């Protein structure tokens, strides 16, 4: 589905990713865990095309997309919800959804977002109650819900979630974890960048651990707890 092979990425003059290789298979939830600054967001940005990859390749469904611009990757089926949720602050929630609805179905007339895809609203039915609110006035949890639903509106094959649980109350985290499981059940693969190992193990089929831009562990969630070196590095 999604494969990174020896990817090097720089931010300005600083090399952040060093020969990062990882894969996300069909219908799988994979977590990329690591401390702040380890390279998780840079990995997600490199996959999404928001940062240029200096060396290595990014492949999606067997196609090399390393040089493809971000918007083409999105339309190919890579959904993205960033760490800050990326909600357009002056647009209403409905308008936030309309953008992806229109891009997913360019030929169709404007339809109310609530009717655009009932399947997506089934993830977070409460979103319907604040469709008219501007992005600026949403709580942290609401922003995350809108960001995930909005990414799903494009009908992605793989969903990239950058720190989806960060800064949220435990009850909201549980809510989002259930949503991720529901997304997986829809056949959509998920790659989550997460600094909290416990949250990661609640949702992941497989884990990658990253530190200083290098993948230092790859395996099942239960195996990571047995690896003291990785535990020490990831927990800091």
């Amino acid at each position, binding site marked *: 589905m999604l494969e990174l092979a020896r990817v090097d990425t720089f931010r300005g003059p600083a090399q952040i990713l060093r020969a990062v290789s990882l894969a996300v298979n069909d219908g799988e939830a994979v977590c990329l865990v690591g401390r702040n600054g380890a390279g998780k967001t840079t990995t997600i940005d490199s996959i999404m095309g928001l940062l240029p990859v200096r060396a290595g390749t990014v492949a999606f469904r067997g196609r090399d997309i390393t040089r493809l*611009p971000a*918007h083409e990757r999105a339309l190919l089926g890579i959904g993205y919800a960033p760490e800050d949720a990326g909600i357009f*602050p002056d647009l209403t929630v409905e*308008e936030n959804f309309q*953008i*992806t609805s229109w891009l997913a179905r360019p030929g169709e007339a404007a339809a109310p977002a609530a009717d655009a895809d009932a399947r997506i609203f089934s993830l977070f039915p409460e979103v319907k109650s604040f469709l008219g609110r501007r992005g600026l006035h949403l709580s942290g949890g609401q922003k995350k819900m809108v960001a995930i639903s909005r990414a799903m509106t*494009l009908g992605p094959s793989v969903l990239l979630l950058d720190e989806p649980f960060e800064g949220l109350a435990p009850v909201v985290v549980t809510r989002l974890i259930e949503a991720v499981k529901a997304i997986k059940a829809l056949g959509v693969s998920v790659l989550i960048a997460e600094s909290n190992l416990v949250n990661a193990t609640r949702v992941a089929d497989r884990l990658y651990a990253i530190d200083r831009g290098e993948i230092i562990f790859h395996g099942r969630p239960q195996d990571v707890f047995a690896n003291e070196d990785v535990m020490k590095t990831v927990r800091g």
Partner: protein
Amino acid sequence: MDVLVIHLVNALLYASVLFLIAGGLSLIYGVMRIVNMAHGNLYAFGAYVTAWAIGSVAGGAPTVLLLVLLPVGALAAAVLGAVLEPTLLRPFYRRAEEYQLLVTFGLLMILEDLLRFIWGPYPLSASEVFENFGSLTIGDSLYPTYNFLVIGVGIVAAIFLWGVIYKTRFGVVLRATSQNMRMASALGVNVNRVYIQAFTLGCFMAGLGGAIIVPGQSAVLGMGIDAVVLAFIVVVVGGLGSLEGALVGALIVGVVREAGITWFPEIELAVLYLIAAIVLLVRPAGLFGRP
């Protein structure tokens, strides 16, 4: 009373043209975060093209034909904008703001020379349209009817632009791109296409300003530089990047300028700069701008 009405109409006339220029400038900044110094000469380009088109076919041509030719300048400015954005501006988006200012200022100078090269140093007139419209009586005074057309175009342009930005798909995508270009692109929006559309629309507005004002005052070299200075005062007062700000700023500058010309002509521009300075001190982002 009649004099006051005439002053008010004159203020609206200024405001209409200023809104077209400053609205385009603000739209371009709002979406692309580029302060387009060349904007004034896109306004001048619109004026020259319309004056040239009308001047070429004038001489007894029916007013309707001349009116049809009026927007030619706006279309020409839009086409020029659609060529300039991807070729000269796009390579500088990732550079520091100084580079963008330098490039657009250079473009202002290049366009000035281009106007001189194509149409020579002498003014171009399209006064036939202005004359064909005749005058109407306000109290005891005669007032050019054409000026009401200019005000009407300004009002229609403001409503049209508001509709485009707040009531259309393109407007939603435009606002999304202006708020978070990176996120818009990650959601599938072709940002380069949005930029070229926004720049073209902004240039169309500037060109329309030039096209509708030229029958009343001729196209002359330097008109773009004068216009861009006033447009910057408008956007400083109203808030760069805000359409509402451009409208209110244009009205304020239009009224103050008309009052200045009438009652304190020696310090007319100084008063405008003073207002801009006060707004900058009290509300640095402008009346409707976001800090």
